[in-house]
């Protein structure tokens, strides 16, 4: 009886680990997709709009213009 219980627990642990692993790899795919989407031209429109607004007059004043 005890042996069966141990085997059952071991089996459950293996199944749990497999589920966790597949979910993690699914997460990695989703995370990568989200990252690429966040770098797409549509997502970057906010930055490009700000670039347009920066030029020509909105650059804040700095003392040293050579080197960043």
């Amino acid at each position, binding site marked *: 009886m005890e042996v069966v219980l141990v085997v059952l627990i071991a089996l459950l642990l293996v199944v749990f680990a497999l589920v966790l692993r597949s979910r993690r790899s699914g997460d*990695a795919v989703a*995370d*990568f997709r*989200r*990252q*690429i*989407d*966040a*770098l*797409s*031209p549509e*997502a*970057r429109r*906010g*930055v*490009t709009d*700000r*670039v347009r*607004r*920066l*030029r020509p007059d909105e*650059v*804040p*004043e*700095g*003392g*040293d*213009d*050579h*080197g*960043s």
Partner: protein
Amino acid sequence: MARDLAIDLGTANTLVYMKGRGIVLNEPSVIALNRQTGEVLATGSEAYQMIGRTPGYIVAVRPLRGGAITDFEITERMIRLLLQRVGVSRFTRPKVVICVPSAITEVERRAVTDAARRAGAADANLIEQPMAAAIGADLPIDEPVGNMVIDIGGGTSETAVISLGGVVALEAVRVGSFDIDAAIQNHIRREHGIAVGERTAEDIKLAVGSAAPTGEDVTAEVRGRDLMSGLPKTVLLTAEEIREAIEDPVSAIIASVIRCLAKAPPELSQDFLARGMYLVGGGGLLRGLAQRIQSETDVPVKMSNVPLEAVVLGAGHVIEHYDALKGMFMGVRR
């Protein structure tokens, strides 16, 4: 509730981007201190005006050199004061993304994040400057194509090949526009026997400095202190002699670009010929530098629309999409 911030902590300038608002601060990375009491007297533009012109008890310093923190305590105080100026207090603790040179050591990384946290940030993460520059320069880094960006700052020059949101090849040297200024200072001291300050050297670079012949026969009149007599003296400098004087740092920067090209996978190399390389950073504004890189590499070189702000705008994009892009932080690569 504090608005999250992106900071381009440059050797020459510090720029701060506030989430939802854009660039809210652009100041020289300079701090002026009372040497006796240690009190901060000025930061940013005000402190920059003091460089080389202070009485004995005041010291105006740049706490970063070569993209690295040379004085941790002073850097922390400078960051704290700059953050205070954009509204950060002990009650409003924002998340902060800081752009740093990709070649910084683990110790330097920790120094930067610790300085930001002590200065009031709830959480501080780092992003590589070339990656931020590529986003800010609006390169299509989400596509599987070779995007090449050359970021020439005050203390470092970095060239990176970026594809699919990640760095494929990278080359960095701790040579930047301050080294060009130093080469000018040394040349004038050696050849003309006069001493000039760092700001005068920078003015000379802006007036007659070039990396390649520009076809203009320009000269600059420079006033300094005669090293023999100690009296004020004026000399006339030609563009050609300044070009020769800065050849070493310019060559070092171009050599690092060539090394990065050599590291790029062949599939991406062919993209550069069609798409070109993008130049960002204040050092990239040196006359003739883009043409010189282009002639030595046979790859077209294009100047970014926003060379001075590209890095902070890229980091600003990351702070706007913090959750989606947090995998790009240094040390969090998946």
